């Protein structure tokens, strides 16, 4: 049971990241590669501040601000210098590698015996369950905030920017500012994922962010296929599906491991699994047409 519990916990760690990718993908139609860098940035800031005996509650705003700055930079480069969004993300991600190394001072920081978010609050006795409940609480809180934000006038303008930029600009909305704010928000969420991951796994590593954008994209794509299949328009339901997507993506990995697939085939089987989940709605609609 512990095996699946830790898997779900890991999925929850990535939930904030999935929400971040959801915002940058869905709302701006920009696949944001900054993610790889800002995730590690969140982890690096957390690890360094923890080793300097800062409390988790002090670290939280610091992580959010750091991620926000990284995202805003990508937005600035993309909108003000008119550079392709993908390239802007890659540039910031590349630069962040050095920033993260400078912050950490070394490529890997092990964190044993430091107080973390999950050891400071005791809800249940079992450490893994405790981590799970605290994370769940945080994720629900974040989802609530993001859901509320997307419902406000500002949020509606942000979503409309992704749907039809020229129309929303005609209505007098500053789309550049919308993009910068949105990317800052998305990367603040991503950094938050790094913050959760480092504290639940007890280490920060310079390479922890490599390919993490795939995890986020995988979660969002799983959610998207269900959203399109059921023609969901509700923001709340979409967000919940994205969270579920993050957990399902990790569970797919876990099931592949549990089945005992030949290790060399692990990645391809995972890919096929996700492909199945994503294509099922399509297959059923093909048959009906």
């Amino acid at each position, binding site marked *: 049971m*512990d*095996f699946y519990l830790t*898997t779900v916990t890991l999925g929850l760690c990535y939930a904030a990241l999935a929400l971040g990718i959801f915002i940058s993908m869905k709302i701006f139609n920009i696949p944001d590669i900054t993610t790889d860098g800002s995730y590690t940035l969140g982890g690096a800031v957390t690890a360094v501040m923890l080793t300097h005996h800062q409390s988790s509650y002090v670290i939280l705003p610091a992580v959010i601000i750091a991620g926000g700055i990284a995202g805003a930079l990508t937005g600035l480069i993309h909108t003000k210098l008119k550079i392709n969004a993908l390239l802007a993300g890659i540039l910031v991600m590349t630069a962040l590698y050095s920033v993260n190394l400078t912050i950490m001072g*070394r490529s*890997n920081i092990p964190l*044993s015996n430091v107080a973390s978010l999950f050891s400071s609050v005791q809800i249940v006795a079992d450490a*893994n369950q405790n981590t799970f409940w605290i994370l769940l609480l945080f994720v629900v809180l974040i989802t609530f905030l993001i859901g509320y934000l997307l419902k406000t006038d500002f949020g509606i303008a942000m979503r409309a920017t992704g749907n039809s930029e020229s129309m929303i600009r005609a209505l007098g909305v500053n789309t550049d500012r919308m993009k910068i704010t949105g990317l800052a928000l998305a990367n603040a969420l991503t950094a938050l994922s790094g913050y959760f991951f480092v504290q639940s*796994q007890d280490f920060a590593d310079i390479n922890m962010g490599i390919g993490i954008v795939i995890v986020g994209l995988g979660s969002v794509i799983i959610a998207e296929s269900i959203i399109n299949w059921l023609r969901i328009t509700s923001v709340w339901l979409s967000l919940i599906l994205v969270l579920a997507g993050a957990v399902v993506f990790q569970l797919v990995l876990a099931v592949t*491991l549990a089945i005992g697939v030949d*290790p060399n085939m692990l990645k391809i089987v995972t890919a096929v699994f996700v492909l199945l989940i994503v294509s099922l709605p399509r297959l059923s609609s093909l048959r009906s047409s």
Partner: protein
Amino acid sequence: MKFFKYLPITFLLIAIVSCKPKPKSVTIPVVGFVDAFEDATIAQARTGFTDALKKEGFSEAKKTVQIEYSNAQGNIPTLTQIVNHFVSENVDLLATCTTLSTVTAIQKTKTIPIFAMVAPVPERMKVLDASGKAPANLFGAVEDLNYIDTSFTIIPKLLKPKGAKLVIGMIYNQSEPQSTDALNRIKSLAEKQNVTIVALPLNSSADAQLVTQSLLNKNIDAFFANPDNTVFAAFETILKSCNQKNVPIFTSEAGLVQRGAVAAFGADIYQWGYQAGEQAAYFLKNHKTDGLAPQMVKIRKRVYNPAAAKKYNITVPSDFEAVK
């Protein structure tokens, strides 16, 4: 605004003009020290290396040698850059720490002597030429796979199986040849010892918890931590999961014992660097490599972690020393 148009060009020109080759001091020898990644244990090799040079009269403080140190922080492209830079500077010798640095250096230079440490024998690194000879410029202290036999055979001696057969879980990294080599070696050992091996691949530290939990789900009696980069990076995660399930960790590397594994038999990393340093000093003194060859690492030690041994009620033989 015309002025701004020429600004980048001016900057470029200034940048190009300000590039000039660093004057190489002819008087003192230069050592290029290449480290592949950052780790507290592996860093002891560098200390050993510089200590050996110091003892032979080559110290940075006395300005009798210049040791240029670069660490790639686990990034392969950076590692290649570092080695290229040292080769273009034409350093007197290269000191390479761990397999990755050594292999990269061998690929980049055939003339500058390479003094390797914390690296396996040339045939393990797959650097032999067609006639089966090691590169002529490779020296230093190396290690074959025998150490794994010793560290692995400790486990059945110290541990009673829960079931009929001892089941040992293992993580290996598919992108590191020495890690896969070690796994194959252990698999063949396990057959002789009547032990079952359950091995899973871990190629990025992010999946460490998932893979470890998956192993623990398969009812293992012990965990063998094969020291590769991913295990080094994510050891705390592995340790936490194993401790929750009361599964002891064994390894072949003293540094991991310090971080919480029960026991290990393996080379003393400091002495390993020291041995390579002695060879480098010999070369710096005589300016020739005659009589030098890659040596097997000499000093190995058996270490255990008192706290971990107590937790699992494991009685460690008296020839093991406790880690500080």
